[in-house]
C-alpha cells in the first residue's frame, strides 16, 4: 500500500484552505449566535460540517484516489444514514406531539 505520492502542494494552497475553514467555522458560529431555530439550524450546522469535512478530506489528506474511494465507500453510506436518522428524529417528535395532544397519557 503505497500512499505518499510524490506530488507536492504549494504552500499557498494550505493557507487558502485554512482561510476557507475559518470562514466556514465562522458561519457555524453565526448559526448559534443568530439563534436560528428548528430544522433550519440543524440543516445549516450539518451543511457546514460536511463542507468542512469535505475540504479536509479532499485537500489535506491528498491521498491517492484509491484511498479516497475507500473513504467514500465507507463514508457515503453513513451519510445517507445521517439523513435517515435526522428525518427519523423529526418523525419521532411529530408522533410524540400527536400523542401528547390527543391521547389521555399515562
Amino acid at each position, binding site marked *: 500500500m503505497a500512499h505518499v505520492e510524490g506530488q507536492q502542494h504549494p504552500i499557498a494552497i494550505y493557507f487558502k484552505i485554512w482561510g476557507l475553514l475559518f470562514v466556514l467555522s465562522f458561519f457555524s458560529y453565526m448559526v448559534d449566535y443568530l439563534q436560528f431555530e428548528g430544522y433550519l439550524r440543524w440543516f445549516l450546522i450539518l451543511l457546514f460540517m460536511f463542507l468542512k469535512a469535505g475540504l479536509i478530506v479532499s485537500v489535506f489528506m491528498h491521498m491517492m484516489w484509491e484511498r479516497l474511494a475507500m473513504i467514500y465507500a465507507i463514508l457515503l453510506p453513513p451519510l445517507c444514514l445521517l439523513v435517515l436518522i435526522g428525518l427519523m428524529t423529526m418523525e419521532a417528535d411529530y408522533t410524540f406531539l*400527536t400523542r401528547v395532544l*390527543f*391521547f*389521555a*397519557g399515562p
Partner: protein
Amino acid sequence: MAVAIVLVLLIVGSVIFNFLSPWWFTPIASNWGTIDTTLIITFIITGIAFVAISLFMAYSIYRFHHKEGRVAHYEPENNKLEWWLTILTTIGVVAMLAPGLVVWNDYITVPEGADEVEAVGKQWQWSFRFPGEDGKLGTTDIKFVSFDNPFGINPDDPNGQDDILISEPELHLPIDRPVKMLLRSYDVLHDFYVPQFRAKMDLVPGLITYFWFIPTRTGKFDLLCAELCGVGHYTMRGHVVVDEAEDFDEWLSSKPTYAQFLAAATAAPAMTGLATKGQEVAGAQGCLSCHTIDGTSGVGPTWKGLFGKEETLADGTTVRVDEAYLIESVSDPNAKLVEGFAPIMPPYELSDEDMAALIALIKSKSE
C-alpha cells in the same frame, strides 16, 4: 417494420382511449379542485413527452431498419443535444412540481376555524365522533375502551362528556364548511377514502393523523378503507352524507352524547347470570367488535332475535338456528355462510363453558 406500425397504432390507440374511455374521475365534491388541476398539468406534460418520445422511436425504426447496404452512423455522443434535453426535462419537472408543492402546502395547512370531526377505524368498521357544544374533542386512550365506553374517551376529561358518538358507519357533514378529519385507529392501519373528495389519509394506531377539506356538493358518497387491514379490508365500507346545514343539525341532534350513552348503558336491564357471563365472554373474545346485540347491523349479523330464526345462507338454503348451528358457526364460521356477509369471521376455539354462556346470551336476546 411491423413494429413501427404497431407502435404508432399503440400510441394513437392510447391517446384515443384516453379521450373516449368512459373511465375517469368521479365528479368532484370538495374544494380540492386544485388537486385535479395539478393532475391535469402533470397529465399534459407527461402526455406530450410520451407521444413525442414514442413517435420518434417508431419513426426511427421505420426510417432506419436494416436494408442491404445500410451503415449505421458512428456518433459516440453529442453533449450539446444531451444538455438541451436535460434542461428541457428539468423545465418539465419544475412545471409539474411547483404547482404540486403549492397545493401540498394547502393540503397540510388546516384553515382556522375548521370543524373537527374524528373518524375511528377498527377491523372492519367505521365510527365517528363530533366534539359537541364546547367544540373540543375529549382526549382518548386505548386503555379506556370498554363495553360502556366504546370510543375510549378519557372519563376525567371534561371536554369529552358532551362529545357526540356516531356508532354506525354513516357520517353526515354540513356543506361548505371546512372540516378537519382527525383519524384514529384501534388496531391496524386503515385509510379514510372518499373518491369524490380526492383527499385521503391513513389511520395509524398509536398516532392521530389528519387531513382537511370542504364538502361542496350534497349527496351520499361511498366511504372506503384504502389501506390493507386484513381479510375484511374490502368490506370496510361506510357512507359520507353531505347535508344542508339544517338537515345536518337535525341529524346530529338525534345522536347521543358520551354522557347520555353512559347513562343508557348503566341503566340497561339486568340479565340472567349466565347471559351476563356471555356478555363478558363476547367482550373479551372480541365478538362484539363485529356483532351487535341491539339489532343494528355490524360487520357480522346481529345477535338480536337470532336464536330460533330461519337463517338464509349464501347458497340460498335456509337453516334453523339452534345450539348446534351456533356452535358450528363459531368453531367453523365458513361452513355455513350467512347471506349478505363476507366470509371473514375467524374461527374460535372456546371452552364449553364459554360457549354455553354465549348461547345463553344469544338466547336472552331472542326472547
